[in-house]
Every structure is written in C-alpha cells, then in structure tokens.
C-alpha cells in the first residue's frame, strides 16, 4: 500500500472539513463548527493501475492511503500551516465559489506552497471550488435571494489553474458532486509520479532504499523556537 500525505488549505469556512468528511465518511453536516488547529484523518482508496508500463504486479487495483491534514482556515492558525504542508505529497487548495475573496486567498496559498515547498514539481496541487450546490439553485428565484450565487467565474479559476499547472475541480461537499474525482485524480497522478520515480531509480544502480532515507533526513528542520517553554 502506498501512503501519501495530503493537506487541505484555504480560507475559513470554504468547506475544507466538509470536503474531507464527504471523502472519508461520505456524509455532510449542515452545521459545522470551524476547525481548531487541525484534524488528522486517513482514507484508503483503490485506483486502477494505468499499467502502461511493464510493471508486472499491477494488474489489480492499487491501494492508496491518504493521510489527510484538515487544517483550520482562520488567520490565527496561519502560523501552523507550514508544519502541515511541509513534506506533503499533495495539497488541495479550496475556495468558495460564492465568495470572491476566497479565491484570492487560495491564490496566496498556492503561491506560498510554490515558494516554500522544496520539491515544488513533485507536490501535486489541486485547486477546488466548493459549494456549487449554492449556484445550481439560482434558477429558483426564492433561493437566489438567500444565496449570493456565483461570485467566482469558472474560467478565471480554471485559467489560473492552467497557468500554474494545477489540477482543477468544482465540487459540492453537500451533494458530493466532484469530491471523489478530486482525490482520485490526485491519487492517479501521485501513482504515475511514483512509477516514473521507480523507473529512474532502476536506472540508477544505487539502491533506492538508501536514497529515500537520505531525502528524508536531509530535509531542513523548521523547528522554530515557538515552544512555550522558551
């Protein structure tokens, strides 16, 4: 089984926890408390092997375990974020399609990820617009009075995603639409990366075990002296 670390980032109340809940538990809470700190969940999914390589063992489904950090969106937990996205394999940056500001916030998250994460090319980032259930009901006049409707243009977000080489989805955690795809796409991509890596490693005569350890150990320590006993 392959394990990947995934982190959810984004402005507060865009629906990060709801997306995770939909993905992990396939349920939705109308009322949700905002996350304090972060919650750690894991979910295993199975993907079909692309199997274009000659990898003999992968005729079956491949189990991929996501270790998910669901972070708090509030500004005051901002300082904790690096700890979660450091060493992450994938990041899901969420915005709210009914809140214009949340996309700007998402863009700053993407920029931060691109600048701070060592292995920028390896980090899979997916930009996700949540709450599309709120705009699909705008045909209903009564509903539209309550809900603000779409505030973030699909094309704007899509273009941004293309520009920065991000995956892009619009989803609804409430109805579940699109949520599964986000994670399956990430899983597929990560697996593809792994196959490429393996191929590279095989060319290298060096034992790949060692190499991976060195990578882990040489990571710079970001221990900042914020411990309370300082």
């Amino acid at each position, binding site marked *: 089984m*392959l*394990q*990947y*670390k995934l982190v959810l980032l984004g402005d*507060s109340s865009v629906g990060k926890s709801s997306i995770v809940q939909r993905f*992990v*538990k396939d*349920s939705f*809470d109308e009322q*949700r*408390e*905002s996350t*304090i*700190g*972060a*919650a*750690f*969940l*894991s*979910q295993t999914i199975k993907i079909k092997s692309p199997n274009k390589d000659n990898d003999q063992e992968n005729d079956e489904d491949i189990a991929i375990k996501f270790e998910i950090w669901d972070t708090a969106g*509030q500004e*005051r*937990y901002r300082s*904790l974020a690096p*700890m979660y996205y*450091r*060493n*992450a*394999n994938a990041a899901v940056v969420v915005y709210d399609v009914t809140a214009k500001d949340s996309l700007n916030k998402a863009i700053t998250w993407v920029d931060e990820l691109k600048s701070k994460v060592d292995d920028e090319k390896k980090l899979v980032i997916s930009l996700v617009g949540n709450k599309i259930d709120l705009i699909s009901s705008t045909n209903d006049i009564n509903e539209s009075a309550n809900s603000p409707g779409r505030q973030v243009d699909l094309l704007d977000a899509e273009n941004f995603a293309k520009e920065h080489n991000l995956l892009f989805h619009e989803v609804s955690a409430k109805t579940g639409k699109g949520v599964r795809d986000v994670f399956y796409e990430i899983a597929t991509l990560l697996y593809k990366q792994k196959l490429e890596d393996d191929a590279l490693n095989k060319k290298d005569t060096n034992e790949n075990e060692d190499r*991976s*350890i060195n*990578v*882990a150990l040489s*990571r*710079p*320590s*970001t*221990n900042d002296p*914020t*411990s*309370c*006993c*300082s």
Partner: protein
Amino acid sequence: MRARDINTTIHNASDNDTTIKDPPNSNLNVNNDFLVSTSSIAQPITNTINTIYETSPTATDDILDLDRNNATINSNTSILRMPSISKNLNKLTDDLLSINSNVTALTSNLQEDLLQSIYSDTITHNNSNITTVNTNNSSTSTNRNINDAVIMKMDDVNLNRSDDLFLKLPDLLPHTVTASDNIGNDDVCHFKKNFFILSSAGKPIYSMHGSDEQSINLMGVIHTLVEFFKINKNCDLKTFEMNSKSNTSCKFTFLNKHPIVLMAHSTNPYETELHLLNQLDFLYSYLLSILSKRQLDRLFSKRENFDLRNFLNQENFQNLNSICNMICNEFHPEFLFYSGSLQVYPMKKKIRDKLHTILLKCYVNSTTVTSTDNTTFTPLTSFFYPDHSRDLSISLLYGMITLVERAQLVSVLRPKGHTLHTTDLHLLFQLIKSQYLPKYLNHNGSTNDTGSNDLWVPVCFPKFNSNGFLYCFIKFFTNEPLLGPGCFSLILISAKKDSFQRLKTLGDQIISSMEHLTLNKILSKTITATGNGINGSSSTSQQRKIHRSYSSSNLLSNYGITSNVNYDIPTLNIVLLPPMDNVYHFIYKSKNLVQHISPPINENLMDYYLYLQKQCSTPNNTSLANLASLDTTPNKESFNARNSNGNMVVVTQLDIKRYDVDIMIESYNDIDGYDTTTGKDTKPGQSQSSLQIYGVSWITTDFELYLLGNPYFLNKRKLLQNAKEIIYWCKKNEPRIFIKQGAVF
C-alpha cells in the same frame, strides 16, 4: 429598539430637569445637548451631571479626601480617549468643581446610572423618584468604601426610593437563564445573572444576555466606572452590592485585566465576590486559551480601540455562551471551591493502576523505540521526523484519559513535579466537550471508524503559561469492557508543534494496549471477583440502599417539582456510592489532591450549597432572601485536634444549618429541578408549603464536606452520623475516587 427609547426618555428627563431647576451655568446646558448626541458612552455622563445638579446642594456636606487638582488632571487624561468632546468635557469638569460637587457624588450617581440603564423600564415611570435620592447617606457609605479601596455598598438608605422599583423587578420569577433566551427578549433586567466582557477602551466584546444596543449602553457605564476608580484612586473596582429591603440583592463584580474588562451581575444572594471573581477569571482564561496573552496584548497594542469581536469567530461566542450557561444553570461543584477542583472518574484501584502502567509503559517504549526505529522509516511515514527524535523525552508534557461527557479525569501521565492547574484542565475539558463531542456522537452511529479522526489542537493554558501555546493530541475512543460506557478521550499535550506524529504513535499504542487488556480474561475475572461492593456488603444491597434513600426524596415531586434524582451508578460496579441513608446529596473535597467527589445528579443544587457555604462562613448574617428562616440555634462546633507533638494542627469546623424553603405547589413544566426563588412568588391560585432540609458543612484542613439531608429528615444526630460515615467511606476509598499520583515519569 428599546435602547433607543431609553435614550430618548433619559434625554427628555434631563431636559425637564434642567428647565425646572434652572441651572446656574448655561455653558453646561449647551454641553448637555452636545453630549447626548455624541456617543453612548457620553450619555451616562450627561445624565450624571444632571443628577449632580439636583443633588449638589446636599452634597456639599460630604467629606472628600481627593484633592481637587488631582481630580482635574486625572479627568483630563481620561477624556483624552474621546478627543472630539474633550473640550466640552473639560469645561464640564471645571463646572463640576466650581459648583463644589464632589467625586463621591459622581460615583454614587454613576451607580444609579447603572441601575437606571438596567431597570430602565421602571425608571421611566419614576422620574420624580430619582431626583429625591439622598446622596448624603449614600456618599458617606461610598466614602468609607473608597477608603477600603475596593468594595462599595449601596445601603438601604439609598434605596428607599428603589423599593418600589424593585418590587416590579421580574427576577423573583424562576427565570431559567439560558443563552438562547435573549432572542426576542432583549431586556437585560430579566436575567438573574449576566456576564459582560469589554475591552479596556470600552468596546463591547461579549454579553451573555441583552441586545447589542442595550449592552453597548451598559458597557459604556461599566467602562466609566472602572476608569473612574483607576484614575482617581489607582485601584481596581471589584464589587459593589446593593441590598434593598425587599430582600433583592444585586451584585456587580468587576475583573480588570487590561486590555480586557469583565463584569458579572448576579442577583443570587449566596454568591460571594470570590465566587464571581472565580467565574470571571474562568471566562477570561477561556479568552486567553484561544488567543494567549501575548497575542491579546499585541492586538490591543496596535490600536487600543481594536474590536475583538471581529477577531473571534462564531464558535468562540458559542463556547462563551456554553461556559456562561454552565456557570449559571448547571450544577458544577468545582465552582464552589475557590481553589478549584477536579472530579475523577471512580474506578477500581486495580484498573486504574493498570491504566497507569499502560501509560507509563507506552511512554517509555515510545522514547526508546522511535530512536532506534528511525532508520527504518520510509520517507512517506517520516513526515514528522525531520530530526532524530533525540528530544522525545521532553516532547510529551502531560497525558491523560478523560470521560468526556462528565469532564472527569480517568488517568494521568505526568512528569515528576508537574501538574496542570485545574482551570487549565477545565478549559480543555470544556473545549473538547463543546467542540468535538457532538461531532463525535453524530458520526458514531453512521460511520465505521471515527477513531481515525485525530485532532491536533493548539491551546494556550493560561495558568501554565499565558504567553504560549501547547499542542494537544486528542483522540476519542470507547472501551466499554474496561472503562464502562461513555466516550473517553486520550489527550497528549506537548510543547512542540511538530510532535504530532510521535504523539500519535504513542496514542495509538496506548489505546491498542488498553483494548488488548480488555481481552485479557484474567483481568475480567478480577473485575467480577472484586466487583462485589465495599465493606463486604454486596453490590445489590448497596444499590437497594441507594434506592431506598431516594424514595424519600420523591417527596419533592409531590410539590410539583421535577426532581430527577438520577444517580448513575458507574458501570462494572466499579465503585459504589457510600451509604447515604438520610443524605440527599453531598460534595466531598480532598484539599490535598484538589479533587472532589459528588454523586452525579440532574438537578442544580448550587444554590443550596452556596447558601450552606455562605451561612457557615458568616453565621450571623440572617438577611436572606429566599431560604427565609434559619434555624435559630445553629449547631456550630469547632474543635481542635492535636498531632503527635501535641501541637494544635487541625481546626475542624462543623455546621448544621436548616433550610426552610417555601415552595409552591405549582407545575413549572419548563423548569428542570427546582428553584428556590419560587419561594417569593405568591401568585393567587398557588398554595404554599414549607420544605425543611438540614445541611451540614464540615471543614477541616484536610477535607471539606458539604451535605444535604433528605427533606424533612430533621434528626441532627443521625445526619451527623451519616456525614461521618461518608467521610470514612471517602477516606477509605480514596484510591478509587481520587487520583493520588498518576503515572509519573
């Protein structure tokens, strides 16, 4: 809406006054109008000035220690906060001094403003009354108390006129105070108790009850009062209290923690200033726990008028609501004790010892195993091992297992010589209970594996270090065979924010070893073998005893009171209750361990215990509102014990008090438990009866016992005997009902 009405009525009133009295200085009149229109904070000031006009002739008699120049200088500094009107206020202060009014008059009138704003409804009909205040008396009393530095009392004389005001007060009704009540009912004076939080600049942050418009007015007054004392005497205003002849007492307690000011308003006559300060401190500690002192200071250092409400989110306010609700409406014995107290989940010593062993073993394992294991980690699992775990030993600060619903401690893992303050622990329990428990329970039915949800939460523990955050790994679990039913949580606290993975490994280990233990048949045998009661009596007979003792308490229900006496006996018969033949309820606190035990009960007995506590500390005070007639010959004993050296060491205080509660035969369907305040209600169609209860308070240097006898059980001797039995039982079962050491590393 209502607040605006008040403004206009007061404005009108002031207009009337000035025209009637024909003020000597026309300058002031102009200022008046200006101020009324400027801000809500200025409004009470104008009001005060008006009243000073009325009272200034009599006020000249008063003696004032404050030197006048000092007062002017200080007023100037206070006024700097409101630059736009500072000029006018300068004139005002000059005027104030020139008409030889004094500062005491100002304070007493400010107090009236507070009253006015709170009881504005009645005030509007009683304008004439307000003007006939006898400042002479009130200010002498105020004077005296200013010299005492903190405590002010508004005495009966001052409230001659307020008797008829108070008669109209609705707080005689058994109004259950809940946070949601203020929807649609925006009148602050309807509430028995209220909490206000504001910034030192006077900006509202939180009020338990009342609409925004109302609370802004009140906070203006609170701000002025606090600042006044700060400026003039350089001291903090703590409490002022009003007692009226109609037995309605009202207490306003302040806690000034720059940049935050908190105030509690309580009509409960049994609550002391210390109780209220304790509660305010808890609220303040909650704010710190989410912000930390350092961040709070930083926010306000940039701009003093920073609006903290924007910084807090909805959950924070919900949590504040639930904390207030917990303090006001629920039965939490820990708020009885000034020094704080914890409740421990009762369980067999053997099982608790086992838990401690597990905690310690896993902890030791994790310190050794991870350091050697480090090399075998793949990069994917070693996210949180950027370095070698050489300093793992200090990464865990404190660990514990708690029963979430009842906020009871099950087991503790702590370093030698370190304990966490009870306030900090209660904050953590409260956070977990309000934030995560509902979520956990929601999903518990529907999903397969909620245990996979691990939380990593930064919390500031204000009593540990108010400037920094600690990080809590929280994992919920159930383990019915070993611990009994209920949702338990494992909490591991670390000072390092990146130690999640280590703590998770440790946590998973602990939980799985506990599950493993459960499967161990030998242990389950020991449980059944030793589960047969205490003192040799079988568990069933014990239970029968308990039931018998509660049949008598059903008397209460005869009076239309829903007394849901519901003693949950802990599962597995782990620990049974002590013999409680004639005892309705008790609280036993071990002073050394800072832990208490009280049988769980679905009834708020707080007032009874508060009454008992207050009576025993001040035996001569008989001016009580609701628990009317006190036994005329209280059985008060004090005896001393000698230790082996023959020195006097233990001073034991033993009190027996009789409650004589008038209760109404009437069905309050919407009220849980019963409220002693019903005693004052004499609506037609209700018949009155008297309920008599004995209460025992037994305080030594070692323990505190508060005990309520069964209603109508009036045999003091037997009740004392029962009290002794309970103490004996508690001492004997100390390892079961308390945690003495915990797992210490």
